[in-house]
């Protein structure tokens, strides 16, 4: 009798052990198991919705396979360039022309005559508004990666993320000088460009501004390459620039305010001409997580045009 009790107790214990093993085996397959090492990106992407100063007014869906560069022209026509072509839209989003070219456009600008300057990897090509080629500038280096162009009445400024330098050309493609070149003799540190996002723009007074992304700053330069002023700080919060290297792109409003876009925490913001954070244009929740390359443009009415390469859209924001 006593032996029988031991056997039954042993069998019950064995069954218990098997049940625990089975439960452990199958519970490890649960897909919703919490990650003890989670980075918690969601927390970083949260913003205060009361800081949103803009609303999305219009969305344009270009037909190009990839889109990488946006610019505004006369009459607030919108130009978008990408893989093997360019499309033009009227300010209300209606198609207004297109043409094809060979290569992947990474940046674009227009001059007062309406000529279109397109950066294609290591060189610049110039077209008229009907797509007729007007010039092809020499490549500076096979290592060059042109990421931004800005054009004034006399000069074209080109940012090269590959060589981490800005070139000043005349409008016929003759190289005049280099800006921001690393020079240990003169104690010039050069631009810090950890990733291929390196933007520049022309301010309200015709001054050159360059995004020194690795320093999280926007820097103003004279035509001789001298540093005039700078602002910006690294921060995950809305008033600063996040990640290793931001802002990835910027543009100007008519009063000289800066519109900036970032990668990492995808967001578009407005800063005063003095660099004071003013408001959010598009919060991280407006973008697919991981979106990079939010090129920007602003028209004469200060509408902000955001190129969203992930959604393949031009998104136009207006002030609330």
């Amino acid at each position, binding site marked *: 009798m006593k032996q029988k009790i031991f056997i039954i107790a042993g069998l019950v214990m064995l069954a218990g052990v098997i049940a625990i093993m089975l439960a452990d085996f199958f519970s490890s397959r649960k897909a919703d198991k919490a*990650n003890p090492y989670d980075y918690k990106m969601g927390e970083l992407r949260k913003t205060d919705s009361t800081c949103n100063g803009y609303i999305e007014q219009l969305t344009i869906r270009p037909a190009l396979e990839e889109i990488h560069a946006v610019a505004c022209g006369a009459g607030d026509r919108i130009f978008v360039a990408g893989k093997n072509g360019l499309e033009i839209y009227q300010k209300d989003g209606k198609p207004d022309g297109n043409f094809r070219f060979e290569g*992947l456009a990474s940046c674009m600008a227009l001059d007062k005559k309406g000529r279109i300057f397109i950066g294609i*990897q290591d060189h610049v090509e110039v077209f008229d508004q009907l797509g007729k080629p007007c010039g092809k500038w020499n490549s500076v280096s096979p290592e060059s*990666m042109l990421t931004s162009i800005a054009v004034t009445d006399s000069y074209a400024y080109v940012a090269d993320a590959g060589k981490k330098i800005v070139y000043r050309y005349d409008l016929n493609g003759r190289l005049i000088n280099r800006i921001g070149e690393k020079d240990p003799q003169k104690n010039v540190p050069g631009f810090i460009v950890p*990733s291929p996002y390196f933007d520049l723009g022309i301010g309200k007074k015709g001054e050159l501004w360059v995004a020194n992304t690795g320093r999280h700053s926007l820097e103003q330069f004279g035509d001789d390459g001298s540093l005039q002023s700078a602002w910006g700080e690294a921060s995950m919060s809305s008033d600063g620039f996040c*990640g290793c290297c931001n802002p990835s792109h910027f543009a100007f409003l008519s009063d000289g305010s800066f519109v900036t876009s970032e990668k990492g925490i995808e967001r578009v913001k407005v800063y005063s001409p003095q660099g004071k954070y003013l408001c959010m244009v598009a919060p991280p929740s407006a973008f697919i997580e*991981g979106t990079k390359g939010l090129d920007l443009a602003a028209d004469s009415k200060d509408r902000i045009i955001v190129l969203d390469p992930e959604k393949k859209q031009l998104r136009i924001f207006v002030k609330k």
Partner: protein
Amino acid sequence: MPNRREFLNTLMRGGILAALGLISGSVILRSRDKNACSGGFACSSCGKSQSCSLPAALAAGQMVWQLDPSKCIQCGRCATNCVMTPSAVKCTHAYAMCGYCDLCGGYLKPGTKTLDTAAEHQLCPTNALKRKFIEDPFFEYTVEEELCIGCGKCVKGCSAFGNGSLQLQVRHDRCKNCNECSIARNCPSQAFTRVPANKPSLLKSFGKEPLEEAGRKGVRNA
């Protein structure tokens, strides 16, 4: 015809023999593992390839497990589901992609104000990622494999805020190459795959995005 007592005795002896077999088998496997090399990922360059299991797999024309970083979502299961402790999955650094950033998203906790090596600022739960000053403002980051548990936290930070040069990979000097990989079975993004032993790595390169490929080529060489 054995009586009940004899039957139970035979059953017990059989059970003890099976348990002894299991214990001795696992002891032999563990001792073999201790002899395995603890060197780097590329066994041909680690200097300890004589004891590594990868050349044997190579000679036999076998397939080995590897993790595709382009599919990896850094869920943390590589750290918790591997039969090895710590996991055979480790963070690997693709130096050619690295921006050598001061504010490294893979090294520093988000929101850290002072960019230094203080333990409380480090993202890695085991302090396996090391930082060395090169020149202002560049820093080199190296992974101390003995400390790395393969959680992927640094990989997520680097992918989100940097160039994605930190990537998880199965280290074949540690992996037991199980028929049914415990991590693969639990991987929510199906990132684990079998690859030929002669091409055991699946590191992400600049080739995925043509625009970035050209740019990074320049950034790397400049």
